[in-house]
């Protein structure tokens, strides 16, 4: 492991100040991904600024029925918070299906949003990778790409975003609060994730030294009967082949509102807006869901080892919507 410095801070201003003025500085929260990447030589900070003492742990109700999640709240705490489990069951389920209990006890919500791809070529520290070393090429395009994305890809990167909870947050229009050298910002979560395009090294709009302070979940009645389904090779402790967060409102057999987001198949947590549009005003049947899913996946760009995900994602959407229409997790 590279030698590096370590500092511990107690205020947001101090944290931002130190990292903003040190080009090789980085924040350290739960560390469940970051320390791995430092050990692998993929992340190369000279200074880790430990922010775990900052007062960003609380989970509070917002007026009107929303919830504000402090950036340092742990995944397991958020999942068992009644306001989340009751009003946003899809979010709670996404949290509980991620990682392992030990990791969920340690990993922070802000860190979760910033976690890096599990692409083996990115993590091996050796292979050409535009995300790790811009301009070196993408080893996954024609390599072992079973786990890679089929939506939102470019010729420069097909890496999948690994987060589960971000998928559910995208479905319910969460808002990311940040504090940085230029002041505070509110960023809609769908804008927080950038498509790789020709700059896959740039994954979000955070500036150097800008820190996530909280995540707001706005009020959303539809979320109360949301589901999050995750499909993978083994039954726990694995990233998704495909996952789906789904919520649907049905009146007299007709869909009047729908939320669909996908994990495991996109270069970012994938809000399936095409499918959502397609669902409005159609009968709440498996056939309608399949048609909407096919519409969403018509933009997919499969590669040699991940072509099955095009079909798998469609079937997952149908499964998710069917279960959501039946009354969600309960």
């Amino acid at each position, binding site marked *: *492991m*590279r*030698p590096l410095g370590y500092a511990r801070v107690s205020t947001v201003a101090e944290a931002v100040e130190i990292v903003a003025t040190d080009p090789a500085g980085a924040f350290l929260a739960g560390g469940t991904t970051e320390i791995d990447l430092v050990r692998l*030589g993929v992340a190369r900070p000279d200074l880790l600024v430990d922010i775990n003492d900052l007062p960003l742990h609380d989970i509070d109700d917002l007026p009107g029925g929303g919830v504000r999640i402090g950036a340092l709240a742990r995944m397991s705490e958020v999942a068992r918070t009644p306001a989340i489990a009751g009003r946003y069951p899809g979010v709670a389920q996404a949290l509980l299906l991620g990682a392992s209990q030990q990791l969920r006890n340690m990993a922070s919500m802000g860190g979760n949003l910033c976690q890096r791809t*599990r692409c*083996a070529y990115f993590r*091996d520290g*050796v*292979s050409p990778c535009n995300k790790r070393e811009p301009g070196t090429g993408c*080893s996954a395009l*024609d*390599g*072992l790409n*079973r786990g890679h994305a089929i939506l939102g890809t470019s010729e420069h990167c097909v890496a999948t975003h690994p987060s589960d909870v971000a998928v559910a947050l995208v479905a319910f229009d969460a808002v990311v609060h940040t504090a940085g050298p230029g002041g505070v910002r509110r960023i809609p979560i769908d804008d927080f994730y950038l498509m790789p395009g020709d700059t896959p090294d740039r994954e979000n709009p955070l500036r150097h030294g800008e820190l996530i302070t909280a995540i707001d979940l706005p009020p959303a009645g539809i979320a109360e009967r949301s589901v999050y389904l995750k*499909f993978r*090779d*083994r*039954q*726990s*402790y*694995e990233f998704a*082949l495909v996952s789906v967060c789904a919520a649907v409102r049905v009146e007299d057999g007709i869909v009047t509102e729908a939320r669909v987001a996908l994990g495991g198949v996109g270069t970012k947590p994938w809000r399936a807006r095409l499918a959502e549009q397609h669902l409005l005003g159609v009968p709440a049947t498996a056939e309608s869901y399949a048609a909407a899913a096919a519409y969403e996946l018509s933009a997919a760009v499969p590669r040699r080892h991940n072509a*099955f995900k095009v*079909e*798998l994602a469609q*079937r*997952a959407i149908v*499964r998710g919507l069917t279960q959501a229409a039946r009354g969600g997790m309960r």
Partner: protein
Amino acid sequence: MNTAIGRPVDRVDSQAKVTGGARYTAEISLPGLTYAAVVGARIPSGRVEAVDASRALAAGGVLAVLTHENLPEIAGQPHLLPSLLGAAAPGQSFFPMQDAAVHYAGQPVALVVAESHEQAQYAASLVDVTYRREPSITSIDEGRDRVYEAQRLFGGLMPGRDERGDVETALAEAPVRIEAGYRFAANHHNALEPPATTAVWQDGRLTLYDSTMGIRATQLTVAHLLGLPLSHVRVITHFVGGGFGSKAMTWPHVTLAAMAARHVGRPVRLALTRAQTYTSNGHREEQEQSISLGATRDGRLTAIRHHKLSITSRFDDWAEPATGVSSQLYDVEHYEGVHSLIQGNTMTPTFTRGPGETLGVFTLETAMDELAYELGVDPVELRLRNHAGADPRGNPWSSDGLAECLRLGAERFGWHGRDPRPRARRDGDWLIGTGMAAAAYPVAFFMPEQRARARVYEDGSAVVQTGTQEFGTGVLTVATQVAADALGLPLESVRFEAGDTDLPNTSAAVGSAGAGMVSAAVHAAATALRDRLVAMAVADAASPLHGADPAAVDVADGRMRLRDRPGTGESYADLMIRHRLADTEAVGSWTPPPLDTPHGLLTFGAQFAEVAVDPDLGLVRVRRMVGVFAPGRVLNPKLARSQLVGGMVWGLSQALLEGNEMDTRHGRWGASNLGEYLVPVNADIPEITVEFVEVEDDVVPLGIKGVGEIGQVGAAAAVANAVFHATGRRLRRLPLAAELVMDPPASS
């Protein structure tokens, strides 16, 4: 009489393990200890053009950087032989860093020694190696034009071809034929403890603390490679965190650790990283198998042709033998088993749990399932109808039990009344299927004489020693049980010591042979000591046993007594104190029966599985498994059951999860950690039932045939056959990944 044998005794080392008191090799702390890190080649083929160690040498704490330019030459070339034979066992007949050639990715090209583990790892990342890349072959697909038939396998131990009768004609004339081909991804062992070695030199003598399944093999190999007298090499191994074949051979890092320690003049610890275990201790080779079965309409096999093609290294004709079961499990007149190879840019593959035969049995037993469907015969009945009563030479089995395993398994599982139609059972989104397979594994007898030493002290306590090692199987516990019974002492009075080459020799514990050979040697030593003490008593005028026939004396709770007059006798302690013996000891040995023993040697079992398959999403969940085995005498049913359950979990894992793909462009494995190379988590493991069928065996040592492999064999086939029953689709690759299992778009 004491009867520790056969009781579900707790592990004697369990407390040390759960409290952290057990010290593993990478935890050995020594004064002046330094740390080594291996730099592995990034290319699979070519040359090291230059090594610039200047940045590494300038980093904090670095003591040395060794490369092919400054590492001494080895004294003797390695030559491959399985460690069970009791000779040097280097894993591959190539030793790295002797010249600039690179034969496989991960091959050691430099070694950094530093004051701390972290400093060594960091400095290793600063060694700048310039390579000249040359064309490589790292997959079967890349080497199809270079296939050749292997003459000998396993380091020359076994023939590559096995045939009898006229397969060609018999298949052509068979009323029913099944033909199938399979592709199997490479497997890795993934022992929880990555291999580690700590090397200490003192006065020209070398002590190695090594994470190995065979301390003797380490001693012989390192002495050979370094040109040292065997008396100058001592190997100590107290605990090993799993082997599964990965530590059965002595891989280059062990000798490199010794060379590094000699270079820096201080003790060196070399612990491989998790990623390095994928390129440092062998693997189960990527392979293809094809099988043709010929049968009569009433379900009698007439011919089997079974071929295996796999990829090996540039320097060794290594393939796990895959036809040792298919050639003899069933009564079939015409047989042909052939192993073909491609030499490529991987390291030499090695033993992996259920070596070779596990995939051979997968091929045979999934084809048998197909034959059962073709004929409309129940799969259990088809096995019963064809089971051979003797091996192909006509020698009766040393012990059998297959029919009993099949019948008991069918009963426990609830097989009878099964609706054989595929896709007939549904549970919500899930299709339910059941499947079964016969299991068999050869009993190995390649080892030389095995020895142990037993000592009784004047207080009646005893120490029994042999140079084996505990790697999780429970050998410390079963050897204690065997020694206690043979000496006639309570279990608590006996301490078993192992893990040191200064102790009497036993071979590497591989191929399910560990319990049998260690127990046989321990039994011989303990019996010899008991006989000596009894002889001393009957010859002693002061003993109550004076003049008795030694054969009429038995020992219980440390007291020698007349079998038919238990009141007459005395304790070991009384006898020894009277003779002023503080202790007395004996060495015992056991020599395996000759390889041409007129007996067929297979361990038998039967596997049953129920699966649920979600055909839309390609998910397979195993709901329950039943395994019934006839492993001969069971020394400790608790430990045996643990090993068998572990084996069945391996089989499930092999069927559904495990496999590594090669990125042939770079010649590197796609997965190099447990996040990418999948093994099951608790949630994947269903209810598992293990039952034993008792068989008497007076050919194998103490009647023990071993439980290390047989639990794994056949389990994957039972799962795959259940997946067919659930879905109606024959899938001919392992692992059964979602993309194979999910119904194709057209049929959904």
